[in-house]
């Protein structure tokens, strides 16, 4: 049985359909003279079943965009619709429950709980939600990310790449509608980075997992189906599948302006 067959039917919708959409989203930090506009009227649709990369210079608003897409942060203006739910007016508690249901996260720092084993870390979102894990799904997941043989180890006994794989499995375990990864390889060497990126790519290809990834690495971005370039809080370029060379060129164009 392939992993894809284990997925819930709701994720087998046709490609190119928006799973998250934002309209005219702005995000301002602080007020008065010191106010910073991290996002300035961004509209965007994230397509189902695709790997979308977000690139841009430091401080351009990548993380801010992702936090808003993921319902971790609220826009100062604009509308966010996540898998059919308008999150703009949701309470803190409803947002938490929505994240629990629909969102998976992978961070730059792996943020694993040191006292739990790899497997327990993976199961954490389910246990927080009070849900029972599906044994078969867990097996497939651990195999997919490649830590099946390390499941009883604690984070301190795992390498960085292995820890990030655990983090990815943790993000996937609850079948999220979208997986967000903010510089998932920012803390890894290039060889390990490649492994981790393959894991993410496989999740998109085999599991149909919609994924949004922020990265500084052109090589990483070239593995995406779509690459968004952001500068000064605006989307300035929207590329489809590109080579690393094209990405670097686009990057220079964006920063050169």
């Amino acid at each position, binding site marked *: 049985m392939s992993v894809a067959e284990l997925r819930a039917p709701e994720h087998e919708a046709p490609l190119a359909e928006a799973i998250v959409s934002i309209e005219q989203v702005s995000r301002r930090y602080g007020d008065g003279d010191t106010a910073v506009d991290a996002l300035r009227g961004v509209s965007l649709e994230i397509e189902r079943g695709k790997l979308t990369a977000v690139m841009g210079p430091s401080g351009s608003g990548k993380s801010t965009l992702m*936090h808003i897409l993921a319902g*971790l*942060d609220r826009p100062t203006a604009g509308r966010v619709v996540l898998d059919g739910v308008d999150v703009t007016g949701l309470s*803190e*508690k409803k947002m*938490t*429950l929505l*994240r*629990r*249901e629909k969102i*998976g*996260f992978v*961070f730059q*720092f792996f*943020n694993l*709980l*040191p*006292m*739990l084993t790899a497997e327990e870390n993976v199961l*954490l*979102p389910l*246990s*927080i*939600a*009070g849900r029972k894990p599906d044994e078969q799904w867990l097996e497939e997941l651990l195999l997919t990310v490649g830590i099946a043989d390390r499941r009883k180890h604690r984070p*301190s006994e795992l390498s960085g790449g292995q820890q990030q794989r655990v983090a990815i499995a*943790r*993000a996937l375990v609850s079948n999220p509608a979208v997986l967000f990864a903010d510089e998932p390889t920012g803390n890894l060497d290039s060889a390990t980075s490649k492994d981790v990126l393959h894991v993410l790519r496989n999740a998109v290809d085999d599991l149909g997992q919609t994924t949004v990834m922020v990265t500084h690495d052109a090589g990483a971005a070239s593995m995406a189906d779509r690459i968004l370039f952001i500068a000064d809080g605006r989307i300035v370029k929207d590329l489809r599948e590109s080579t690393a060379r094209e990405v670097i060129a686009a990057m220079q164009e964006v920063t050169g302006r």
Partner: protein
Amino acid sequence: MKRVALKGIFGRKLRTALTAFAVVLGVAMVTGSLVLTDTMSKAFDSIFESSYQETDVVVSGRSLVDWSDEGNALVPDSLLRQVRALPDVEAAAGSILDLNSSANQAHLIDRDGEIVMGNGNPTFGLGVDPSEPRFNPLELSAGRFAQAPGEVVVDASSARTLGFSIGDGVKIAVGGPIKTFELVGIAKYGDVDTIGSATMAIFHVDEAQRLLEKPGYDVISVAGREGVSDDELLRSIAPLLPANAQVRTAAEQADADKKGVSEFISFIRYALLGFGGIALFVGAFVIFNTLSITVAQRTRELATLRTLGATPAQVLRSVVLEAFAVGLVASLAGIAAGVGLAVGLTELMAAAGLDLPRASTVFQTRTWVAGLALGTLVTLAASVAPALRATRVNAIAAVREGAVAPRGRLARSAFPISVALVVVSAATLGYGLFASDVGVATRILALVVGLLTLFVGVAMVATRLVTPLAHVLGWPGAKLGGAAGQLARGNAVRMPGRTAATAAALMIGLALVTFVTAVGNGLRQSERDAIVRQIDADYVVVSQNGWSTLPAVVGETAAEVDGVEVASSIRRERGRVLGDGVDVSGIDPATLGEVFHVEWSEGSPAALRSLGPSDAIVRKSFADEYGFATGGEFLVRTPTGLMLNLRITGVYDPPRFDSLLGSVLVSRATFDRSFSRPGDSLTLIWSGQPLSTFEDALAAYPDARVVDDETFVDDRAAEIDGILNLLYALLALSVIVSLFGMVNTLVLAVFERTREIGMLRAVGLTRRQTRRMVRHESIVTALIGAALGVPLGLLLATAVTRALAEYDLSLSIPVGALAVFALVAVLAGLAAALLPARRASRLDVLEALQYE
């Protein structure tokens, strides 16, 4: 580096404040105790000095028997005339004014006919000579002094609270039944309304002598003529003195008068200091733990300093300097709090009617020196281990995520060391408890040192016990609390050393509370057993406070009630045998055996029935101590100086715990002949009449109380509860200090796990779940404290009970109380988690995720 250390303090305000608070409380307790007792002491000084303000020398009776109900020997009336006749003497007056004696008793009756008890404070009946106002320490605030029989003056405080005004008829029980006196004046003692919350009924000295059955004066105050020195006056009076009187200067007399009070105050002082010391000791745990955690959290920062060229010595200095600064500031705050505490307590006592003379607060140099030194030293001592650990942080840690300082050689052998500590402390405790032939000081030293090392040792061993304990104690939380509960259990065992030290602080308080409860429970049980074994009567007549004697007439009145089958009064007074004070009981040979179980060691009930005028039955422990046996003879000296020659006709062996009879039993006839004012400690009655019959019969004697045998047993046992409650209140302080430690550890843990909490929140942990997670961790820690402390307390109680086995002390485990302590621990955990849980749940998810 100095700047770095001090900046660190400001950068971590909350935890520094919490750490400091642990020291503040202990120091406050220590300085507060000193200030309070110094102030009390000065207040009493001024009272006793005001007794002899314009007096040059004082003639007083000697104290022939300590703690006697009769007080000191009296100065005969005739001596006053002789002293007045001396050429050196300008004036002299006799008075009944011994504030240390329980013989000068007069009970005021309030408007509802109830006896005024003044919550256990003295109820003085005094006598002054109004014709010699210069010797009179009392100052009228209204009216005049009593001149004639039937007149009385009361203290201003009682007059105010009882609503008496001049011209009123005031009911007073003095010496016998209630009589009504005319209130002719209201007076203050020196410059206070009354001493403490004592009540004072002040009569003319002649009337006081009659009412109190005192054929003489307590003191004669003498003023010399112009130009006569105190020494000359002393020399001229000395030849007139009978054997049981003495003459002293006014200052010496005041010193002697306050000796009893001084001893009492210094007892209070040491007791309070002891509890302050415990609080400081617990505070040391808190400081040690907080600093350890802070050092661990600052590993990165310290390592960065090392990469910038800081030497290990500089790192050490920066940690110690931080501790020093915290200790110093906390001690200063503690001293201020201590003074506030003492002032507050004095005000509180005044509000409760315990008005001490308004001596201004005494703040001696040694008070602040002790507070400052103790607080700072304790903090410094607690910082040594964390500071040493900080020096082992090396530069590489700056670049490694999650690096920790390597464990030192000492830390690696912590377990064997801790086991050794426990063994050594147990041995020291054992020596202190069980060794025979050691001095009291050595014994106390062994017990204190043993106990402190035991706590430290157990705290260290606890590092190993935390994981299994958390597993068991966290089980209900993990079951009920879902993911939050499971995470909490995991968090509790992440840093077993930390959890152990946090729990250990609570353990100390709980161990001591458990110990006090278990021993108290044992004492109560032993007391009950002892009383039940002795008394065999329907009713018992005792005084309201349970320990002072009642005039003989009370027992006689009770015996005359219709329907009394047997009534047997037991007199009590102190006597002196071979220089030591002993209790002497006067019993009725014919009836005692019917209402009282006498357990015989030598002799028989026959010896009791045939007890002759110069026969005595003695207690076995007394006989053993002096080597007496049946047939032997010995001398008893009475408080008035009489010598009794007694022959032993039997030896009885009462329960060692609480014997209701004295060491020497004589017949009531002999007793009444030998002691000037015989009083009864108990009257035991067999009768089918209801209790109310006796209450009615004794209505004229408000100090008398009739109870059935069960109530009597309950009341005696309940006296122990009062002491227990006081100890609980004092031990609560150390539990509170340990609470600060728990708050501290949790705050630091939340702080340390900021990013992790952010992640948990990001993946769907709700705020409520976050709070629950912190709360459960806190409860698990508190329960570990209870799981260590309660058994330790029971163990100590068992050891002490064994050591005191010869006093019939039994051990009974207070199961209900132990359940209460577990509950207290849970509540403590909840309370400690309030603030940290809120902080954790309020963390901004995004900021938390980016937190480094």
